């Protein structure tokens, strides 16, 4: 009897157990269930110089329940893995030299373009870029770029980042000096209170050549530009203005005609005319034209097909198709003396360069220092960059000083007068020094986090958007870069053509990020 009663007492429990086992099974057949939320886990890849930033991003992501850790790489090694599609989330940066998305947004985000590390592809975006790059009508281009920004803002292929303020410093006795956005240092106009020699502390180890056609590097150009002038040049804030050219016209969308200023002389006394201009560009366009070597700068001229002399002081450039950034490109090409190079050869020209710029080469070594002296026969330079006339100082020396702490110590000790690239954490201390002036200028490099959008989890726009909301950039930029950086809504820079100032960067909103992740099926905190 007791036994029977005992068994009966368990019946309800067994019943419940059976129901419990059966019901979910039935439910499965009727409707698709929500999959169990999984944790989003990712590795943040960065180079050593952005490790702190990557750690801060990881901390932000952990706060919303994403498992994140940082891995530090050498760039080429990381790039290989990125291109193989083996990485997910990586801190990258890309600089622009043309003040146009042509060399930033296009290579970074156009389908399969060279710098497209996120594997982003949107035909609509590509079409906008194509339109902007083949028209020379500014309104059309601007409209296309605005539309492209809207598309990017919605597609969020990256965690959009920021651009930095570049900090440079000079001795208090230096006058008429303004760091330029393209980081070139034009010493023609710069004055020095006591003394006749300006010494510049360059941030680089070395420059690669003194031949304007044999490099593809900004620092090299910075030095060379003081010995050589171009058809056109740029103001410190990126506007193209005439230099050797007096004026130019566009007889057709793909043709540029330049009138060359008369009476310009090279440092060796040779007169500059159309022949020198044609020679300069043919030397770059033709394969093997520089002592058997080809110039690495050819590609920077875009679709330039031929350069012809119209008369002694007029040159015509014909392009395969309209190329709206052609003038911006020409800023980076300096005119060389035909007769001198023909006479001495390319090798000797690279060792003893002769240009028509404000300073002439005296002596130097590419990895040590380059010494130049004032060219008294200088034609004066661009009238748009006053004062016009010979350079203010007698001598300038560019010293290669790759260590920032040394550059700063040398500036404070009075050994150098202008230094490139002051790290943000050292700028404040330098600003307090009365013997030093510190100036900042908008950088032209875009820093961001790229995601592999071709693969899960970042093929889901909700996850990408969540990442944009999850990172507290304002705080990171304040703590890591001392506030010397400005956020960007997309990868378009305010210094570039066609920037839409009304687009605002995604705000820091961890709640929204969590909600988006939840929608995408991820567990959140």
């Amino acid at each position, binding site marked *: 009897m007791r036994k029977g009663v005992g068994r009966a007492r368990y019946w309800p429990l067994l019943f419940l157990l059976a129901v419990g086992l059966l019901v979910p099974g039935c439910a499965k057949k009727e409707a698709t269930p929500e999959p169990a939320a999984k944790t989003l886990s990712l590795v943040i890849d960065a180079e050593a110089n952005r490790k702190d930033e990557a750690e801060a991003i990881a901390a932000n992501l952990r706060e919303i329940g994403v498992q994140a850790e940082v891995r530090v790489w050498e760039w*080429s*090694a990381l*790039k*290989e*893995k990125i291109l193989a599609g083996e990485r997910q989330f990586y801190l990258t940066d*890309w*600089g*622009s*030299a*043309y003040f146009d998305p*042509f*060399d*930033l947004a*296009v*290579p970074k985000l156009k389908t399969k373009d*060279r*710098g497209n590390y996120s594997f982003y592809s949107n035909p609509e975006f590509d079409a906008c870029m194509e339109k902007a790059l083949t028209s020379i009508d500014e309104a059309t281009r601007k409209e296309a770029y605005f539309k492209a920004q809207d598309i990017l803002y919605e597609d969020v292929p990256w965690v959009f980042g920021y651009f930095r303020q570049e900090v440079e410093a000079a001795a208090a006795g230096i006058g008429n000096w303004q760091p330029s956005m393209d980081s070139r240092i034009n010493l023609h106009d710069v004055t020095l209170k006591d003394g006749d*020699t300006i010494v510049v502390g360059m941030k680089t*180890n*070395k420059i*690669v*050549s003194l*031949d304007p056609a*044999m*490099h*593809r*590097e900004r620092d090299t150009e910075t030095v060379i530009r003081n010995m050589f002038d171009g058809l056109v040049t740029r103001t410190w804030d990126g506007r193209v203005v005439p230099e050797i050219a007096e004026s130019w016209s566009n007889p057709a969308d793909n043709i540029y005609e330049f009138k060359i200023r008369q009476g310009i002389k090279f440092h060796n006394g040779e007169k500059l005319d159309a022949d020198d201009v044609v020679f300069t560009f043919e030397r770059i366009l033709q*394969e093997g034209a*520089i002592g058997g*070597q*080809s110039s*690495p700068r*050819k*590609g*920077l001229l*875009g679709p330039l097909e031929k350069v012809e002399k119209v008369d002694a002081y007029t040159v015509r450039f014909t392009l395969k198709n309209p190329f709206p*950034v052609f003038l911006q490109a020409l800023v980076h090409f300096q005119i060389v003396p035909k007769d001198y190079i023909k006479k001495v050869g390319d090798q000797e020209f*690279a060792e003893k360069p002769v240009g028509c710029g404000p300073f002439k080469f005296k002596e130097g*070594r*590419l*990895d*040590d*220092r380059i*010494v130049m002296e004032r060219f008294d026969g200088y034609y004066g330079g661009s009238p748009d960059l006053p004062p016009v006339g010979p350079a203010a100082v007698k001598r300038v*020396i560019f*010293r*290669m*000083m*790759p*260590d920032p*702490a*040394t550059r700063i*110590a*040398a500036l*404070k*000790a009075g*050994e150098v007068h202008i230094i490139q690239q002051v790290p943000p954490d050292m700028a404040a201390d330098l600003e307090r020094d009365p013997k030093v002036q510190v100036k900042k200028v908008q950088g032209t490099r875009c820093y961001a986090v790229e995601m592999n959008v071709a693969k899960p989890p970042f093929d889901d726009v909700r996850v990408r958007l969540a990442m944009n909301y999850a990172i507290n950039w304002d705080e990171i930029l304040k703590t890591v870069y001392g506030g010397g950086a400005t956020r960007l809504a997309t990868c378009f820079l305010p210094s570039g053509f066609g920037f839409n100032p009304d687009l605002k960067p995604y705000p820091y909103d961890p709640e929204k990020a969590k909600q988006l992740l939840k929608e995408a099926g991820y567990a959140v905190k």
Partner: protein
Amino acid sequence: MRGVRILERVLAALPIMVGIAIVVFAFMRFMPGDPVDIMIGEAGGVSEAEIEMLRAQFHLDKPLPVQLALYLGRLARGDLGYSIFRSRPVIDVIAETIPATVELAVFSMLFALVVALPIGVVSAVRQYSLLDRASMAGAFLGISMPAFWLGIICIIVFSLHLGWFPTSGRIAYGLEPRTITGLFVLDAVITGNLAALWDALRHLVLPSVTLGAGVAAVVARVVRSSMLEVLRTDYVLLARAKGVAEASVVIRHALRNALIPTVTVVGLQVGTLLGGNMIVETIFGWPGLGRLVVDAIFARDYPLVQGSVMVYALTFVLVNLATDVLYTYLNPKISL
């Protein structure tokens, strides 16, 4: 006889050099990254044709065995190739950095020896004395102190605050002596240019001390331990028993024998110093080989890296040989 032996040793080094050439070639190609891609950098509108053209120019489009054969063929003729980035023959680029590197290496070693020898000897003679403990603690500090930190501290204290030495560079503009060897100090002495000599020496002090500190620490410890060993030998006991003056015992009898292990260590350190030191060269804006090589590696400038490593290898072979020859002078019982 010694001459023949030396020649034999040099010839024996040849296969080593070939082996090194192949290994470096292979290592560089296995490294991720492409020199042309790095050279083109961040540009817009880059076409495949442009990349291919540049790759062909540097023979990077050919299969690896062909590239290797081309490289070894050139090497056999003494041609180190053409630097991809600097558009100049590798040999010229390297040759330009040699005087600066040698000058710094010599002065760092000089500093190291001047500091380390007396400290090592005195520490051994007065073992466990306060001096011994203090100098060995100093040596420990010297080994552990990173050059980037010591260098910056030296600049801040001696250049910025005291103003005794320039922060960086090799010589002030306008003071360079006429170039004979490229070593400013030597050229200044030869030409009797005192102003240049003084300025070159002032520029050498901080980098030499920074680079030499670590070497001094190692050498001091080696000298001390080998001195301790030698001081306990029978012949030292005998010399003392004969009534030889203590200074003479220590210097003539003990130190000379204790120098053999020291020479080995110094030889290795000289080899390293002649390879240049990227960190010290970067801090002091010193245009030497170390900076060149590291820069070439980051740029994947294959010919330049390969050429530099061959120069390193040759330096090591020669320094080792010189060390071995030196042994025979220190101890006639040793033969090559």
